[in-house]
C-alpha cells in the first residue's frame, strides 16, 4: 500500500471508532504525540508520588497512614501501566525516564506545589485526583487501544482515591476550629492549581486541534475544566467550605458556573520550571535513579550469571 492509502485506512478506522493497536500503521506525528502524552502521563504518576509520600511518616492515624501508603503505591502501579503503554509505541522506559530527568519531557504542573499540611492529602485526593479523573474518563475512549485500556484500569482506582481524599476533608470539616481552618487553607492553595491541570485555554492550546481530530482527546481543555468546576462547586457545599474565587457564581442561562480568571502567568512559569517545587521534584527522581544504579547493575549481573549457569548445566546434561 502507498503511504496515502495507509493514511486513508488509518483515518477511516479513527472515524469508525476502531482502536489503533501497536502493530497497526499510524502517522509518525500520531505516534510522536502519543509517546509524548502517555510518557508524560506516566511521569506525572511517578513524580506525583512525592508530594503525597511527603506525609506518609506523619499521617495522623494508623488508618489514614495505611490508606495513604496504599494510594501512593497505586500511583507507582499506574506509572508502570503507562510506561508499558508507551513502550508499545517503540520507545524504552529508560529513554522516557531520561527525558524526564533532562527536562525534555514534562509532567503535570500540579506536582510542583508543596504539601504543607495534612489537609493537603485531602485536597489532593479530592481536587487533583478529581481533575485527573475528568481527563481520564475521557481518555478511556481515546483512539489508541493500549492507552484506552490502561485508563480503564486506572480510573477505577482513581475514583476510589478521590472519595478517600474527600473523606479526609470531611473529617477535618467536622473537627476542631484548627482542623476546619487547615481544611479551608488547603482548598485555598490547591483550587487554582487544580484548574490549571486541564491545560491552557482552547485558544492557546497548541496540540489540541490535531489530537481532537485523531480522537486522542475527546473533549477540549475548557470543556473539561467547566465540568470539573460545576462538580466541585456543588461538592464544596457538603464540606461547608468555600472556593477561593469571588467570581464563582451559578449562571442559570448557561447552566454552568461562571468563574474568575486563571493566573496564566503563574501557569506558564510552573510549566517552564519555575514553580515552588520543580527543582526538588526532579532532583528527588534523579537521586533515586542515580543512587539505584548499582542495584540495577547488580540485578543484571546476577541474572546474567544465572543464565550462563543454566546454559552450561544444560550443555553438561546434553
Amino acid at each position, binding site marked *: 500500500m502507498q503511504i496515502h492509502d495507509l493514511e486513508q485506512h488509518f483515518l477511516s478506522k479513527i472515524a469508525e471508532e476502531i482502536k489503533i493497536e501497536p502493530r497497526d500503521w499510524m502517522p509518525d506525528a500520531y505516534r510522536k504525540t502519543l509517546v509524548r502524552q502517555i510518557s508524560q502521563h506516566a511521569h506525572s504518576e511517578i513524580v506525583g*508520588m512525592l508530594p503525597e509520600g511527603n506525609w506518609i511518616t506523619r499521617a*495522623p492515624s494508623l488508618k489514614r497512614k*495505611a490508606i495513604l501508603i496504599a494510594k*501512593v503505591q497505586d500511583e507507582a502501579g499506574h506509572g508502570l501501566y503507562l510506561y508499558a503503554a508507551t513502550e508499545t509505541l517503540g520507545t524504552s522506559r529508560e529513554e522516557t525516564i531520561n527525558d524526564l530527568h533532562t527536562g525534555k519531557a514534562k509532567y503535570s504542573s500540579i506536582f510542583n506545589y508543596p504539601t504543607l499540611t495534612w489537609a493537603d492529602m485531602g485536597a489532593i485526593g479530592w481536587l487533583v485526583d478529581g481533575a485527573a479523573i475528568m481527563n481520564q474518563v475521557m481518555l478511556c475512549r481515546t483512539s489508541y487501544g493500549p492507552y484506552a485500556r490502561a485508563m480503564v484500569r486506572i480510573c477505577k482506582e482513581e475514583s476510589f482515591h478521590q472519595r478517600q481524599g474527600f473523606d479526609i476533608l470531611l473529617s477535618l470539616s467536622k473537627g476542631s476550629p484548627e482542623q476546619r481552618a487547615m481544611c479551608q487553607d488547603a482548598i485555598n492553595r490547591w483550587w487554582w492549581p487544580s484548574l490549571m491541570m486541564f491545560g491552557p485555554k482552547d485558544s492557546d492550546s497548541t496540540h489540541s486541534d490535531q489530537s481532537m481530530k485523531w480522537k486522542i482527546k475527546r473533549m477540549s481543555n475548557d470543556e473539561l475544566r467547566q465540568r470539573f468546576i460545576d462538580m466541585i462547586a456543588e461538592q464544596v457545599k457538603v464540606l461547608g467550605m468555600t472556593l477561593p474565587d469571588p467570581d464563582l457564581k451559578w449562571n442559570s442561562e448557561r447552566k454552568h458556573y461562571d468563574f474568575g480568571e486563571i493566573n496564566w502567568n503563574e501557569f506558564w512559569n510552573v510549566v517552564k520550571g519555575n514553580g515552588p517545587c520543580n527543582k526538588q521534584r526532579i532532583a528527588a527522581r534523579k537521586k533515586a535513579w542515580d543512587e539505584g544504579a*548499582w542495584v*540495577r547493575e547488580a540485578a543484571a*549481573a546476577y541474572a546474567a550469571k544465572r543464565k550462563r549457569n543454566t546454559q552450561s548445566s544444560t550443555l553438561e546434561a546434553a
Partner: protein
Amino acid sequence: MNNQLFNYLLHLADNTLILSHRNSEWCGHGPVLEQDIAITNISLDLLGQARNFYQYAAMLTGNNATEDSLAYLRTEREFKNLLLVEQPNGDWAATILRQFFFSTYQELLYKQLIQCNDAQVAAIAEKGLKEVTYHVRWSSEWVIRLGDGTEESRDRMMVAADELWRFTGEMFIPADYEKEAGISGFGVNVESMQQDWLKKVEAIFEEATLPMPGAAGYMQRGGKEGTHTEHLGYILAAMQYLQRTYPGCEW
C-alpha cells in the same frame, strides 16, 4: 488484664510499626519502580500487622485506649521494638538485610504463634504469616542477588552485615514478658528459635557467596525494655507530631 500479655502485644506491634515506618521512607525513592512498589507493599503489610496487635492490646487494656493512642501517645521510653527495626534505611543493601534478618525471625515466630493458646494472637499470626512468607522470599532473593551480583553490591552487603549484625542477638534474648509468654503459652520462647534462624541465615549467605558475620560478636540490646538507639526519638517526633499538636481530634 494480664499485664505481660499487654506488654507482649505492644512489643509485637511496635516491631512491625517501626519497620513499616522505615520501609515507607523509601516510597517514591526506590532504585527501580518495581522495587519501590515491593518495599512499600511490605511496609503496608507490616502496618496492618501492627494495627491488629494494637487493636487487641487496646481492647485488653480498656481505658479508652485505641490503636492510635498506643501508637501516637507513648514515648520513646515506652516503645518496645527491637533495636534492629529502628535502624536507618541506609542504602538498598542495608534495607534489604535488615528486612531479611527480621522477616526470617518473624517467620519462625509466627509459625509458632499460630499454635499459641491465645486465639486472638494465633489468628493475627496466621494472617501475618502469609505476608511474612512473601517478605522472606523477596528479601532472601535480594540478599543473594546483591551478594552474588557485582563487586560493589557485594561490598555494600558486607558493610550492611557489619553494621546490622550487632542488633540481631536481641531477637533471641527474652524480655520478662516474653519469658512469661513462653511459660503461660500465649506466646513464644524466643531463645528456642535462634538455631533455626542462624541456619536459615547461613544458608542464604552461602548462596549469596557472603561470609557469615562473626557469630559470637557482642550484641546490643535494650529496645524490648524501652532503652533505644538515638534513632527512635526522631521517628516518633515525625510520626506523632499531629496527634501531639492537636490532641483528642478525629482525623
